[in-house]
């Protein structure tokens, strides 16, 4: 009965989404006040999908093998946490999670949003329901998660060891929350374009959603990057894999949106541009989902290739994004740009920020789809890898990082004060860093060298907005901005240090022999067999020293029995100034072992920076929400109206 309840709830939710679409059309065509009805329906729809998803969790938790999805993806002997995580570790379950987040976001919007006009709210809720409707159809027609098996098998078949990792169990839902959080921005943009009410109120209503989604995307990407780093054993943190790019593209668009929305909120300018970014950001999320789910590009993440599902998702993408862009093309002309601004102003700074981010987005988009285009034209197969992305996106990212230091110092509309003089100290620090790298490491490549200098400059420049202000009276959102910008400096320092200082050694070593990497001398002490619940392994004991004290590391080569698989478990030791990363490889007939060692100075700064960026975003979000509550005094016409 549980599975049937879930399916019934899903059908009912789909029906309500269709009803919302009709209500939207009715509200836009007539003068009927459907605001309350619309909001109630949206909330009920959200509750129904939550029930549906809860039922899926329940059948997985109970290991109900009569449900085909559970049979295929679970096993009664799995640890409980992975039984539950198994609910979204497959195609159908993850699409149900997607639509659940989509409609729950709609329900929250219906409950909380009091900022836009009623007409725009109704239109946005209708747009959100229309989005959900397509994904309901996709689930019910092409990927029913609740399909039964008869007769029920005794036990399940799936016990994929790769997915039994806490990082991997929670990394996809975090990214999904981020992806789908952008759907509200999309719906609001569509709603506002439909009613023609693109104004400052709209920007203020949209901003918390963009900030929240952006924070989750940042965390999801950071976590995914660290997972790839420690789990794959290749020593890299970013591979420019199509699916990594699929998560980076919405992030880049959302970052641009986050900044342009401030221009719209504060000055009423950049209307058309902001609306387009809001559409693009969620479109990139859909492109990402399509790339992962259709398996159209070769990638480590591309799961089962299913043309029917791919076609369905592509049709949804084309319909939704096509409709939004058409609406934008038709209605964009009627948007009156707001207050003008002069060349030297914060508006200009943010426009340049947006241009650079858009160009980087375009580069990543082109690089990801380029193999597809080339194969379509010439039939040649190729792949675009790190050399392209690093060489093209790297310098642009550095220019952007330099400008991050300038932008926040500019005032709105026009800047009369000499801003550049305030940047003398950061610039001197940057130049000093450059000189130091030239003296100490003359053979370092150009990009890491510039990266370190710019990071030093930006770390100082990013705190300038706080100088000369009372810290207690500075808005929380400003603290958030400073933290996020400092986070960029920290991550940039980590990236540059990793690129410039990493030492790597790969050699065949016999037990008792030593190998030097960076400041470390590493001895391969012993190789011992060991075993876990569903694997056996050969474990090396390494004794590493740099002058004083001995550090023991135990990298493994693991052999999983079912399914048969071999993995390298890297042993990583973190120090304040870097990480020692060790991988044990194959044995060789002479009795030696392949040993791969990396000394990566300050590599942890990459993820520390990512977390700091997300923390800054969270602070900004809290600041905005807190200020909003304070603003809702009895004199506020908005709260008076809804009191």
């Amino acid at each position: 009965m549980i599975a049937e309840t879930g399916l019934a709830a899903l059908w009912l939710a789909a029906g309500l989404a269709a009803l919302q679409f009709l209500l939207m059309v009715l509200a836009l065509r007539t003068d009927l006040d459907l605001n309350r009805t619309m909001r109630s329906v949206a909330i009920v729809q959200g509750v129904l999908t939550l029930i549906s998803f809860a039922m899926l969790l329940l059948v997985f938790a109970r290991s109900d093998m009569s449900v085909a999805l559970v049979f295929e993806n679970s096993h009664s002997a799995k640890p409980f946490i992975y039984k539950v995580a198994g609910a979204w570790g497959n195609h159908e379950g993850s699409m149900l999670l997607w639509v659940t987040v989509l409609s729950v976001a709609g329900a929250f919007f219906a409950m909380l949003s009091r900022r836009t006009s009623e007409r725009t709210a109704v239109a946005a809720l209708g747009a959100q329901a229309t989005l959900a409707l397509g994904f309901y159809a996709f689930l019910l027609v092409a990927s029913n998660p609740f399909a039964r098996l008869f007769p029920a098998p005794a036990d399940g078949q799936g016990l994929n060891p790769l997915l039994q990792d806490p990082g991997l169990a929670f990394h996809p839902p975090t990214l999904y929350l981020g992806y789908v959080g952008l759907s509200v921005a999309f719906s609001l943009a569509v709603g506002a374009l439909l009613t023609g009410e693109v104004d400052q109120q709209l920007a203020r209503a949209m901003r918390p959603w963009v900030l929240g989604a952006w924070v989750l995307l940042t965390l999801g990407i950071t976590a995914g990057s660290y997972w790839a780093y420690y789990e794959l054993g290749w020593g890299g943190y970013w591979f420019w894999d199509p699916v990594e790019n699929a998560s980076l593209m919405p992030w880049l668009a959302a970052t641009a949106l986050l900044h342009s929305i401030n221009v719209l909120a504060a000055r009423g300018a950049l209307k058309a541009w902001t609306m387009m970014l809001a559409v693009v950001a969620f479109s990139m999320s859909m492109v990402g989902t399509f790339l992962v789910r259709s398996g159209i590009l070769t990638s480590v993440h591309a799961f089962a290739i299913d043309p029917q599902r791919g076609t369905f998702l592509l049709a949804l993408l084309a319909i939704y994004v096509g409709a939004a862009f058409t609406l934008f093309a038709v209605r964009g002309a009627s948007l009156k740009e707001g207050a003008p601004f002069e060349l030297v102003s914060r508006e200009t700074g943010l426009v340049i920020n947006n241009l650079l981010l858009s160009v980087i987005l375009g580069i990543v988009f082109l690089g990801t789809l380029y193999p597809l285009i080339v194969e379509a034209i010439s039939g040649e197969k190729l792949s675009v890898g790190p050399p392209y992305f690093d060489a093209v996106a790297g310098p642009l990212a550095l220019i952007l990082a330099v400008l991050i230091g300038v932008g926040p110092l500019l005032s709105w509309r026009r800047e009369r004060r000499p801003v550049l003089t305030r940047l003398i100290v950061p610039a001197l620090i940057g130049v000093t860093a450059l000189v130091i790298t030239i003296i100490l490491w003359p053979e370092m490549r150009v990009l890491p060298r510039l990266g370190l200098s710019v990071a030093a400059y930006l770390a100082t420049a990013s705190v300038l907005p706080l100088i000369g202000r009372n810290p207690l009276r500075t808005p929380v959102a400003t603290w958030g901005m400073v933290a996020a910008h400092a986070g960029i400096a920290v991550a940039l320092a980590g990236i540059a240090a990793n690129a410039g200082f990493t030492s790597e050694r790969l050699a065949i070593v016999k037990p008792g022999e030593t190998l030097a990497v960076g400041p470390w001398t590493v001895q391969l002490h012993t190789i011992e067999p060991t075993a876990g619940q569903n694997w056996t392994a050969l474990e090396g004991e390494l004794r590493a020293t740099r002058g004083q004290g001995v550090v023991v590391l135990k990298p493994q080569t693991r052999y999983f029995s079912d399914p048969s698989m071999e993995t390298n478990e890297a042993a990583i030791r973190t120090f304040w100034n870097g990480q020692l990363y060790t991988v044990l490889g194959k044995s060789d007939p002479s009795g030696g072992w392949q040993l791969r060692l990396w000394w990566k100075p300050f590599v942890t700064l990459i993820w520390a920076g990512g977390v700091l960026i997300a923390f800054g975003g969270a602070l900004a979000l809290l600041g905005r929400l807190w200020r909003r509550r304070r603003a809702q005094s009895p004199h506020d016409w908005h709260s008076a109206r809804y009191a």
Partner: protein
Amino acid sequence: MSRSLRFAPLVLLILVVVALVWRLATPADTTVSSKLAGKQVPMFQLAAGVSSKPGLASGDLATGSPRLLNIFASWCVPCISEVKVLQGLKSRGVAIDGIAVRDRPQDIAEFLARNGDPYQRIGSDVQSQVQIALGSSGVPESFIIDGKGTIRYQHIGPIEPSDVPLILAKLERAR
């Protein structure tokens, strides 16, 4: 924002969707193109696999018209079903030679008597030397060789009935 600029995102989207539709519509090409395609057949001379037919040497493959060289063995199960497809090709005028890998004459004769015999010549490659020189990693495998003795196409695995049009097209192109 000018009119053409406002339509730019829509046009870009249409282009991308067309590219993706094309990609979904064309099945992914997973065939491995042989490194030997375009190269001469390596020099070899093999003794007869069965007493009733002549053996095979590299010179026998450059006869002025394209030929199909099939690598098989009597102990190979997929070869049994493949032979029937080869019979069909033979009846459509395709000249087929065989190389029997790690086999014995009486076993080859029995195999041909039971399953059919599409071959004009059969060489016996007892030590797999010619097979390795051709860059073939298993049985069955087939090569299309043009009139000058150049390898034009390598087919890995048995030729299924569904592969017949492909093989005929490749033979036609090797002409």
